[in-house]
């Protein structure tokens, strides 16, 4: 087909697959092996790691620091991702849906700017904002001397993550709201439905697919984000050490690469569960169009 043939097509795909295989698939699989060794960054085990079986997992599962990190991650994902970003994103999209002009542009631009600036810049902006002595927040609230990042580290990285990531939900819900057929909304309005009733009876059912997509993507991303490290580095004393940061601190500064890999595998498995959930929902949603396409292709082949 297309004059390419199986062989040519293979030659076209192979380089990309090789790169993906080496730097994406291989590390994922290698994690499984590494997690069962006592591999270290330095020292004797760096040269000659030995196989320790499930010892690392025993150590991790018995470590209260791991369970605390998992609990913190859960709180972080729920509060900043599912509740914070999704709800705020939807609220902004809803409030802006019929707005035009400068106010809409200003809000959109600010939310988007927070999203696109590099993470290390965004982090510093928040470190400056929350600074104990000269921070803007303390000036505004008149609470000089409050060390927000030390007294409320989790709350701060949650708010920070909402600030950084809301743009995605806003964009997704904006396009979702635009896809709601106006005739349905108009019918509801003519039946006398209030704004809230329109939202409940017309909008939400129409954008259910978008809501699921958004929730699952946000969950995945929030679960894996490393950016809070730039604000608190997991501290103080691990009080904001979400899983991604915990792995880093264990593996690189801590030097325990084997243990880090073992935690990574646990994280990968949790990711897999979330992603499979997404795929399942995605497939259920895509099933109908996909079938239509398949039918068309088959029809096209059969047609003269």
């Amino acid at each position, binding site marked *: 087909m297309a004059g390419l043939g199986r062989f040519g*097509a293979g030659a076209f*795909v192979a380089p990309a697959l090789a790169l993906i295989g080496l*730097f994406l698939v291989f*590390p994922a699989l290698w994690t499984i092996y590494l997690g069962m060794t006592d591999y270290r960054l330095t020292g004797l085990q760096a040269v000659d790691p030995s196989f320790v079986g499930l010892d690392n997992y025993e150590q991790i599962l018995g470590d209260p620091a791991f369970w605390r990190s998992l609990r913190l991650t859960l709180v972080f994902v729920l509060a900043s991702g599912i509740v914070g970003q999704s709800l705020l994103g939807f609220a*902004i999209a809803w409030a802006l849906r019929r707005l035009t002009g400068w106010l809409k542009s200003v809000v959109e631009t600010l939310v988007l700017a927070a999203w*696109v600036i*590099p993470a290390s810049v965004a982090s510093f902006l928040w470190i400056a904002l929350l600074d104990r002595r*000269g921070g*803007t927040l303390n000036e505004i609230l008149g609470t000089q001397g409050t060390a927000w990042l030390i007294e409320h580290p989790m709350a701060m990285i949650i708010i920070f993550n909402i600030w950084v990531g809301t743009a995605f939900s806003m964009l997704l819900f904006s396009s979702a709201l635009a896809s709601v057929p106006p005739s349905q909304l108009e019918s509801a309005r003519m039946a006398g439905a209030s704004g809230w009733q329109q939202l409940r009876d017309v909008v939400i059912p129409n954008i259910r697919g978008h809501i699921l997509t958004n929730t699952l993507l946000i969950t995945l991303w929030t679960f894996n984000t490393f950016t809070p490290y730039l604000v608190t580095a997991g501290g103080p004393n691990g009080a904001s050490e979400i899983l991604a940061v915990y792995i880093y601190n264990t593996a690189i500064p801590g030097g325990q690469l084997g243990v880090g890999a073992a935690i990574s595998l646990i994280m990968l498995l949790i990711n897999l569960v979330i992603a499979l959930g997404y795929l399942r929902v995605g497939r259920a949603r895509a099933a109908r169009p996909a079938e239509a396409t398949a039918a068309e292709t088959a029809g096209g082949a059969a047609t003269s």
Partner: protein
Amino acid sequence: MTETRTTAAAPPPLAARVARAPRARHFVSRLLTVIGLALLVVFFGVPLAWLATAPFDSAPTLAVAWPDWTLSNFAAIGENRYAIGSFVNSAIIGFGTCVVVLVLGAFASYALSRVRIPGRDGLLYALLLLSSIVTGTAAMVPTFQLVNMLGLIDTHLAVVLVVSGGTLPTVIFILKDFMDSIPRSYEESARLYGARPWQILRDVVVPIARPGLAFVAVWTLVQVWGNFLVPYLLIRRTQQQPAAVLMYTFYTESGQADLRLLSAFALIFSIPIIVMYFLVNRRYGFRFHGGIKS
């Protein structure tokens, strides 16, 4: 006259009552919306405001304040040993990744779009899934070890390869969409005149898919430019570090941060990405798989 008075004294007709209640409610909801939006502007705007004011302040502090205008802070970038070099590093890594991803992605997506390989869609989905779960975070240990084994620690190539491997599935997915939308008759027509596959790609597919390629280029650049973890993990020598990592060391490793340098550096570092993003957003809108950054 009397008639008018009676009407005024009587309770308003039903229609007027019905009309007034929603109007009041409408006003309240409108007011709430405006207040809400104002709070949003404060929440998102105040942290960003520092980026707009501090670089131009002759004596910047951590707080947002009306600047005492100057451009001398930008001179501090030139005085720092690593600052300009880090932008060059970022540019090298960004450009390198773009080239790798575009070339490999274009070839692969074209082939995948045109040839029916059994299990093609499954493979594509699996890779997309893998790329979203094997983030830099979860695979950092083996990635570090792999790069170490390859002897590529402290090289830009390492970052280019790792980031390319991670973004290629998404890139192929997006580009395949573009390739799918190119009518096959274009290529068939070229084939009839004897064009080889690479000629078809060069003369027909690439020019037509140009918007898609441009989009992917910018998308990749945005991904790489701000990426912190991968270079942080793989590049330890300060001379080799891109701006994202250097920025972080500016405010963590040097005791008292130099706010003049930091603010100017942060602004210069952010501007290309903001400009590129808004350019693409204006041109292509929010049509692609949830926007530019993921």
